[in-house]
């Protein structure tokens, strides 16, 4: 059951071989047993989950079910869920019971999926290791000394440890793909604008995008079918014809032109990750794909550009946390100015404050042109590199992250080393392109490695197809950490 695909779970539920209440109960029991050590969830509410499971069972009994009805899903704690504590990994929202549902939460509710709980994350999604969470670090289920990646580290851990069959994530510079790679699961960040961000707590609005995290590409396709859709409440939401992402999963990849950016295969990638990625490319060659070298000359600037634009937008977005309307408020203050300054000093963690300071600085008088505007210009050059590359290839592949998971505490005091963990993912984010990571084996210390697949705009179906074909001839996505099976 724990290793079953969403399609298998769907059949078991519709054939009434298991009820949603039983299935949900089984995952809740696992969470109870394993979460105290893994720390993948910030909030679990058995009563609420089981109530949703009962509703799902009624939907199934009355023939009103969708393909995902009754299947539990873990929600990243960045998504507001009505009546649920929604912390975004921060102390400043440590008492925030959301009065409304995010669009993504509502979509899964309406599909009859069961909210299994809220997963741990880097504070306000700012981090690549889950160590900036106010609620403590998450452990990587493959090696509990290692980080799970971030910022969607709790979601990645929950899926890898089989505490949930699927989870939601968000990705601003790599926050779905990097933890998916480090935890050996599959995750996709769709094209910017495809999934509504209503009720998703904002970090960097020109980059933020939600996506699913699960065991396989097929599972991701089923979840994307629910998540993608126009929402007038999100001003960046795109109006497009509804697609069925499962339809082309089985298509042959023979003749597929895979672009390999020479910059992604240069120095920086560790040899264990390189071997895993090369082996995956060999599989694709066997499947009939061809390779073409492409160049993304400006991608080396993606991390500096990202660390101007994302903090700038964050400094604006996070100004709403003022201790007046909701959330944490400092207990001692002398006047209004002091209330703001103390609430924010006490409520935000170090990394969040650091980024607000960077963002405030680059937007301040006299520095705007040199930093913010320059970064926006380079963003165009980075995006244009991809446009040129896609003239020569159908999609792009490379490593998701330069190394396998590092140890908890290893990069805490060195923000720059931490930022470079997203060196391959942030370029696609800046361009707004869809990106995904699938597991392709193991590196040092038997820690997972991920293959990064970048598609052209709106080519999610093709990316899922290409990932699915690989998963039909390999079984990395079916492996689980040994200790977890006990």
């Amino acid at each position, binding site marked *: 059951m724990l290793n079953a695909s969403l399609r298998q779970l769907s059949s078991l539920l519709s054939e009434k071989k298991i009820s949603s209440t039983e299935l949900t109960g089984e995952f809740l029991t696992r969470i109870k047993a394993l979460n105290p050590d893994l720390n993948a969830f910030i909030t679990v509410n058995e009563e609420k989950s089981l109530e949703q499971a009962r509703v799902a069972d009624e939907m199934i009994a009355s023939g009103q079910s969708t393909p995902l009805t009754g299947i539990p899903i873990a929600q990243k704690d960045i998504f507001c869920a009505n009546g649920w504590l929604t912390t975004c990994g921060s102390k400043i929202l440590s*008492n925030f019971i959301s*009065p409304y549902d995010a669009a993504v939460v509502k979509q899964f509710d309406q599909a009859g999926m069961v909210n299994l709980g809220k997963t741990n994350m880097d504070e306000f999604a700012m981090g690549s290791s889950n160590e900036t969470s106010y609620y403590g670090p998450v452990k990587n289920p493959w090696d509990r000394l290692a980080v799970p990646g971030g910022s969607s580290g709790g979601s990645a851990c929950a899926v890898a440890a089989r505490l949930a069959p699927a989870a939601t994530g968000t990705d601003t510079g790599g926050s779905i793909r990097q933890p998916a790679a480090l935890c050996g699961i599959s995750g996709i960040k769709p094209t*910017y*604008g495809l999934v509504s961000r209503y009720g998703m707590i904002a970090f960097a609005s*020109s980059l933020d995008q939600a996506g699913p995290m699960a065991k396989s590409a097929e599972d991701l396709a089923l979840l994307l079918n629910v998540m993608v859709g126009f929402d*007038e409440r999100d*001003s*960046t*939401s795109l109006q497009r014809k509804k697609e069925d992402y499962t339809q082309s999963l089985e298509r042959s990849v023979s003749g597929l032109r895979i672009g390999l950016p020479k910059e992604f295969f240069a120095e920086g990638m560790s040899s264990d990750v390189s071997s895993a990625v090369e082996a995956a490319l060999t599989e694709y060659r066997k499947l009939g794909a061809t390779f073409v070298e492409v160049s993304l000359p*400006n991608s*080396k600037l993606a991390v*500096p*550009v990202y*660390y*101007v634009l994302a903090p700038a937008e964050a*400094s604006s977005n996070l*100004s709403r946390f*003022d*201790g*007046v*309307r*909701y959330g*944490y*408020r400092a207990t001692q*203050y*002398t*006047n*209004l*100015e*002091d*209330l*703001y*300054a*103390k609430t*924010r*000093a006490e409520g935000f963690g170090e990394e969040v*404050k*650091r980024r*607000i*300071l*960077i963002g*405030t*600085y680059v937007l301040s008088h006299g520095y705007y042109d040199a*930093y913010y*505007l*320059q*970064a*926006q*210009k*380079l*963003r*165009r*050059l980075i995006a244009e590199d991809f446009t040129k590359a896609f003239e020569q290839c159908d999609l792009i592949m490379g490593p998701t992250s330069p190394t396998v998971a590092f140890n908890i505490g290893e990069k805490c005091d060195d*923000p*720059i080393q931490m*930022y470079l963990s997203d060196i391959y993912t942030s370029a696609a984010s*800046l*361009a*707004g392109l869809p990106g995904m990571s699938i597991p392709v084996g193991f590196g040092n210390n038997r820690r997972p490695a991920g293959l990064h697949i970048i598609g052209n*705009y709106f080519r999610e179906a093709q990316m899922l197809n290409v990932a699915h074909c690989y998963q039909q001839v390999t079984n990395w996505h079916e492996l689980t950490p040994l200790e977890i099976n006990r």
Partner: protein
Amino acid sequence: MTLSLSDIKRVAKLARIEISEADAQQNLIQLSGIFNLIEQMQAVETQKIKPMSYSQDMVQRLREDIVTETDQHIQFQSIAPQIEDSYYLVPRVIE
């Protein structure tokens, strides 16, 4: 570019974040390192390049100026730190 301690304190004030002397020092070291990384951007000539705010140069949609939300102030204020008669309470601003 060289950051100074007074830059850090000025920016913290602008961002409405109280900062101790020790934290300002610590931030000076870390932000200086981060700005060294950011400075790599200056090597590229971009005079003729148009800034890009959103991918695909997306333009944000506008909507009709009509009421879409109902009054839910009781529910929304139930999670406020301090309210009175449906007002949010803050320290006195005008004497």
